[in-house]
């Protein structure tokens, strides 16, 4: 069976993480910010799976399961907050949430 260099998998995870980070930093639509957070979490999970493949263990897959659970809980709460925000401000622009600045 052919082999894959382990750094290529980790580099792919790093690229996906950076794209997600750019999305979080640049978008002003809160739904896109939440989607970019999902991209970053998924990149973290990919790094765990690459680690699991490197050592041939199942522990990396268990960490990925924990990440997927965290992502599901985070998305549920985040989307609830988005619905509440849209109800209150009638927009998805995150800049309207700057009322607390001094």
């Amino acid at each position: 069976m052919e082999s894959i260099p382990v750094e290529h998998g980790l580099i792919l995870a790093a690229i996906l993480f950076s794209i997600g980070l750019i999305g979080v930093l640049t978008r002003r639509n809160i739904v896109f910010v939440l989607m970019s957070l999902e991209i970053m979490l998924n990149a973290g999970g990919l790094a765990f799976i690459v680690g699991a493949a490197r050592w041939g263990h199942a522990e990396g897959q268990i960490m990925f399961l924990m990440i997927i659970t965290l992502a599901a809980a985070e998305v549920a709460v985040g989307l609830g907050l988005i619905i509440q925000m849209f109800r209150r401000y009638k927009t998805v622009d995150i800049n309207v949430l700057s009322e607390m600045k001094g």
Partner: protein
Amino acid sequence: MIALFYIAGAIAVIATVAVILQTNIVHGLLYLILSLLAVAVIFYVLGAPFAAVLEAIVYAGAIMVLFLFVIMMLNLGQHTRDQERDWLSPRGWIAPSIMAAILLGQLLTVLSSIDYDLVPEQVGVMEVSALLFGPYVLAVELASILLLAGLVAAYHLAKTK
């Protein structure tokens, strides 16, 4: 198998770039589903079929459908799309992209020192579940409590007063 890894990786990167460049939320969501399915293929190639199935069912299935429901409830029209196009100006893009590129460069520098070729071997459902319900059973219980807390919080937050 090795070609599948690089093809799926290229699709994942292209689809993820397309996600953060979209002005229409639904198009962005569809690209995100494509990206997640490509990552699921990578999981399978790396010998983690259980994680690949979970990625397709839980991520690309359940979580993305949740997004779709909320986008339907928000009911954003043409107005938001035009607004989105104004927000996507190059001025706002450059500084964060440079910062993220610097971070990526640092990560690549660290990762380039690794030199190991992995031969993917299948670690199936049986090995994972034996660990999941053996030494990691407390983590499973904590995950269930986290999901319950997320459920209660989402119900409370989205409730109409």
